[in-house]
């Protein structure tokens, strides 16, 4: 906040978006050979790859739970994904994101079907430009679907926040760095229930209301794209089958 940057000009944002407009998003599933399921999302300048392994046996044995699978998430920033090289290995931020992501996914994955096992979800941020936890969670939920792991619904995520006094959806890097607030949100769209909610900054009670709704709207748009992506994938596979 030392250098002042004008983030809103003539009612438009730095990249020309309206306040309630999310960035361009493209999604793909089934992008990796080895992983049981995988997904790749480009979301603005973010590039995130997710891969899933499991359900598979959990070692060491004392960690096994006879009533359910352990769902384990690992969020990782590649060294070259940010302007200043990130030292490899988990830092405190990654550990926290991995935790809240796992908790969000546990609400939809039917872990009780796979006792004593582990389902591993890996999110690789290859290029980062704000909002990566939402991108990662969205990709992870696609990769789980791609792996054929039974879920009650998808998880869809989007952030909103406050920038130059305005409430806007889906902050990009400059808005995140110089803005006043960021609020990432993830929902189970069909039940409209919240599975991830974090926030830091400054919001009045009324601003919170507005920010929450913008994030929710963003997540719902993401949900539509997720469904499209999975539908296209199924049609693609079915098409291949017909080829035989």
């Amino acid at each position: 906040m030392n250098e002042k940057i004008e983030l809103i000009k003539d009612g438009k944002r730095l990249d020309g978006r309206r306040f309630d407009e999310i960035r361009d998003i493209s999604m793909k599933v089934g992008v990796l050979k080895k992983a049981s399921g995988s997904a790749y999302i480009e979301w603005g300048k973010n590039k995130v790859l997710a891969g899933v392994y499991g359900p598979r046996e959990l070692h060491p044995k004392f960690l096994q739970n006879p009533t359910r699978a352990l769902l384990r998430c690992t969020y990782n920033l590649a060294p070259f994904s940010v302007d200043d090289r990130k030292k490899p290995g988990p830092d405190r931020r990654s550990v926290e994101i991995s935790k809240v992501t796992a908790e969000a996914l546990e609400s939809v994955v039917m872990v009780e079907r796979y006792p004593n096992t582990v389902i591993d979800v890996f999110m690789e941020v290859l290029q980062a430009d704000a909002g990566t936890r939402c991108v990662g969670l969205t990709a992870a939920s696609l990769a789980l679907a791609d792996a054929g792991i039974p879920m009650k619904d998808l998880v869809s995520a989007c952030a909103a926040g406050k920038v130059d006094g305005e409430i806007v959806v889906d902050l990009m890097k400059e808005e995140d760095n110089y803005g006043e607030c960021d609020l990432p949100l993830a929902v189970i769209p069909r039940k409209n229930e919240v599975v991830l909610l974090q926030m830091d900054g400054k919001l009045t009670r009324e601003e919170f209301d507005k920010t929450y709704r913008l994030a929710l709207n963003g997540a719902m748009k993401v949900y539509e794209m997720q469904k499209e992506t999975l539908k296209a994938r199924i049609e693609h596979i079915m098409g291949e089958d017909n080829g035989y």
Partner: protein
Amino acid sequence: MDIESYLKKDYITNLLREDRRIDGRKFDDYRKIEIIGNYIDEKACGSSLANLGDTKVLVGISMDVGEPYPDKPMDGIMITSAELRPLASPRFESGPPDEESIEIARVVDRGIRESGAIETEKLLIGENKVWVVFIDIHILDHCGNLIDAAGIAAISALLNTRMPKYEDGKIIRGEWAGKLPISCIPIPCTVAKIADKILIDPNIDEEYAMDTRLTIATTDTINAMQKGGKGMLTEKEIFDAVDLSFRKGNDIRRLIE
């Protein structure tokens, strides 16, 4: 989770269906809050022991001189760490911070940082030299709701923190030069969701039984939020929790001042 825990969970859930809590509190009651300031009176720059019922969290503040972050060359630095000391719970083990302690430290940190409670712009010493404020959260007895206890102890400790004397490029340990400038008092407030009820300040038995929790740190605005745990929250539950956290935040702020 062992059999005893399952039974207790059942018991707590059933009670709540009758709108009763295991320790007789109302849904919006905190356990008894006791704050002992300046607990580490001789060595720490600031300190406070917070008891939330049987939960005991000690926070000590240390100050050192360091380099500012390149993107904020005129501002002091705050660093928050939490240690779940192994005497606080049979579940804790010695070792580097795990995800539980990292979450506590980061949520407490966000409440303080985002509210601007520490006036970091007053912590510049000279070119490329600023004060570094270490907030060390020491969990001593884990009987539930560590985040609130840690947050209350942290801001209380900051309020009694003295600035070490600094002369000729050196800190003079044991001598002081005024107080750490603090502008406001952020208070984290945690609500738990159990059996579709929203209640405040869960004790350790309630934590085992809870579906999810939501922590909201407030001053006159919301400064930090953190959902934790596997369950889901409805919109109404979230908005109710926000209102509750403003109200309880004010109550606790009065206790501290």
